[in-house]
């Protein structure tokens, strides 16, 4: 039989005991949420930190990284193709966002009015393009918009007796073709957000306005639209980012042409990274691109806040 050892227990600090207690209490919760944080760290955080270093080097993806300071960033400001791609992003945003948001809001108002029979069927049909494979959709649109034998031009020339449109053979028409594809693809997605936003607007407001003599159009512009502003701001910002991030749509429909008229920043960065394995320069392009998007989003938010105030 041995005597119990007499140990002087260490007095835990308040902080560590509190921390341990909290970890112990929430251990299952931490365990269940840990896969996200671990994968985020591996696939998000570490690449993010590494890419900062990468942007200061010349690196082919294998072998040693050669430190070059801010040379890659200096190169970005001379890269005409990159700045053209940024301008293309602006064009695409201006071309498609006003139409997309207007159409999706109008459709949402019509569908939520209670006067449309088969509301769910229409909602499903309008949403279907969003879940269609974009590569397949892009190739299909390319066939439809073919200058020589595309169905769109056949319809225009044979049935309407109009001149054929150089859908993919002219810089601006190529952007318009892309706009049509984007609206087709994203209308349902934006409409679902609009429908959700409309449910937060009390019917009484519209009804009271109508009793006071407002027309349906006045009720729409003076009640519905202002109250939908948070949804509109959210969709404007995400659609703007989307305009700069177009990838599959462009590859499948226009292939970045004509003369890089539909080249987007993301495709430019991808090409730099994988066509010539210049990962350092691609990382620098990525960071400059991030700053541009960040500033555009801030400006949009500030502009809307000022309008609200």
């Amino acid at each position: 039989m041995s005597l119990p050892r007499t140990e002087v227990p260490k007095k835990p600090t308040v902080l560590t005991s509190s921390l341990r207690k909290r970890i112990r209490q929430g251990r299952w919760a931490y365990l269940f949420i840990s896969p996200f944080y671990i994968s985020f760290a591996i696939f998000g955080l570490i690449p993010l930190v590494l890419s900062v270093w990468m942007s200061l080097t010349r690196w082919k993806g294998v072998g040693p990284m050669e430190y070059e300071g801010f040379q890659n960033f200096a190169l970005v400001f001379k890269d005409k193709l990159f700045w053209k791609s940024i301008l293309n992003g602006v064009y695409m945003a201006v071309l498609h966002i006003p139409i997309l948001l207007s159409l999706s809001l109008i459709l949402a108002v019509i569908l939520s009015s209670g006067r449309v029979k088969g509301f769910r069927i229409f909602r499903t049909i309008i949403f279907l393009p969003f879940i269609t494979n974009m590569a397949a959709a892009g190739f299909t649109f390319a066939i439809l918009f073919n200058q020589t034998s595309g169905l769109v031009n056949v319809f225009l020339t044979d049935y309407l007796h109009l001149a054929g449109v150089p859908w993919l053979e002219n810089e601006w028409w190529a952007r318009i073709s892309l706009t049509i594809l984007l609206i087709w693809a994203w209308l349902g997605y934006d409409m679902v957000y609009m429908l959700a936003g409309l449910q937060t607007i009390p019917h009484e407001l519209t009804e009271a306005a109508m009793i006071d003599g407002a027309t349906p159009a006045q009720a729409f512009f003076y009640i519905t639209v202002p109250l939908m502003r948070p949804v509109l701001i959210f969709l404007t910002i995400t659609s703007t980012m989307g305009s700069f991030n177009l990838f599959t749509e462009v590859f499948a429909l226009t292939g970045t042409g004509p003369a890089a008229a539909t080249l987007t920043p993301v495709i430019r960065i991808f090409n730099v990274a994988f066509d010539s394995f210049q990962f350092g320069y691609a990382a620098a392009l990525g960071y400059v691109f991030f700053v541009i998007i960040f500033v555009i989003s801030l400006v949009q938010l500030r502009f809307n806040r000022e309008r609200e105030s």
Partner: protein
Amino acid sequence: MSSKLLSKMLAILVLTSILLAACGSPATEPATQAPATEPPVPPTATPEPIPTGHLLIWVQKINMEAWQNTVLPAFQEMYPDVEIEFVNNSPQQVADDVGLCIQGGTGCPDLFVTGTEYGTKLVDLGGLTDLTDLVQPYIADLHPGMLAACTKDGRIYCVPWDIGPMGTFYRRDVFEAAGLASDPDSVSAMIATWDDLLTTCQTIKAETGLNCFALNKANNEGYLYEYMLSQQGLGYFNADGELTIDSPENVATLEKLAMFWEAGVVSDTQVWTDPWYAEFANPVDNTDVPPVALITIPVWMGGFLKGWIAPAAVGNWGVAQMPAFVEGGARAGSGGGSSYYIPETSTNPTAAWALIKFLNLDPANNAAIYAYADIFPAVFSAYAEPVFEEADPYFGGQQTRAFFAEVASNSPADHFLHPYGAVMRTNVLIAIQKFALGQVTAQEALTEAEDATALETGMTQH
């Protein structure tokens, strides 16, 4: 949750992720890989091991089918213990995927085939098996231009399979409808230079209303421009590795191309689209998509015409020499080609090399593949095979294989294959399109392309 607690949690997670990442497969040099300087297959002087085991091959489908329908069954009979698995993808996709697997250090096939224009950047990247000692006995038999694209620092990392000697494929019915002679010798004489071709095109247009060939403006893919450079021994860089994108010769070539647009004798159809195929297949009286008279393109177009573009047009097509840039100039040029590559991480380099030897370095087998799919050998000894003397019924009994063998022997060395070839091509295509749309002059367009390439790659301008 306090911010300190959050910080500690985050730190733990970051450390965990680093440890997990460290536990992953190493980025370079796995234990099974052969050292770059010592290929696992012994030189031909010593007995070679008998290939066995699994062999994963990345290759485009038409190449795979060409092997399967010709000599691959004989290889499998010879080496029954080799189990071949194919993954089909386009040459560009194969090159992109191999680039990623080399950079990731895992996931590469045992053998792959891709266009040499894509493979050049992989040779420069590293991660391919050094085949120098194995290829050494065959060097004199391989196309030197393609072999140069396989070489880095004096070491050889791929084996050229095919090259693209140029010809002008023309439709006899369109020539006859225009009241022109349609036998290959007469057509070759008729289109002796690009200026002569323009005259012929104008006759065809005047007599039949048909376009001569397709030359899209807005989405021009630059093929014809590159073929015209190739026949002059030009390209995007010179022998010293300096950029020559906007050299006077290149500017003159682009301006020469423009005369076909200005004369209004070409269609604006984009290549590799349904209307483009229809222009080759449709009868002369088709008004929806009227046919064109000809196309100047590498030898492999013959396989496409026979196989799926116009298989019913037996006897209607002929092959003439491509026009010279100037009178008395070269009437031979080359476009494209592909090679065999073995990644360093290949788990079965023995079987991979055995297959390359069997399919490619055996002249009879190589010629058999050519006869089946018009994939023209980069191995000179194959040209002596009897199949090269045979007449091709699709081309009205013309000896097209002998014709292309002669073109291949006379093609000047061009300068397109470069690790930064994709950058050059991207910038040149934009230049051609801008010029074609009338936005800039040929000089301005090509100077802008060269400046952009120099900026991005750091290459010296001539």
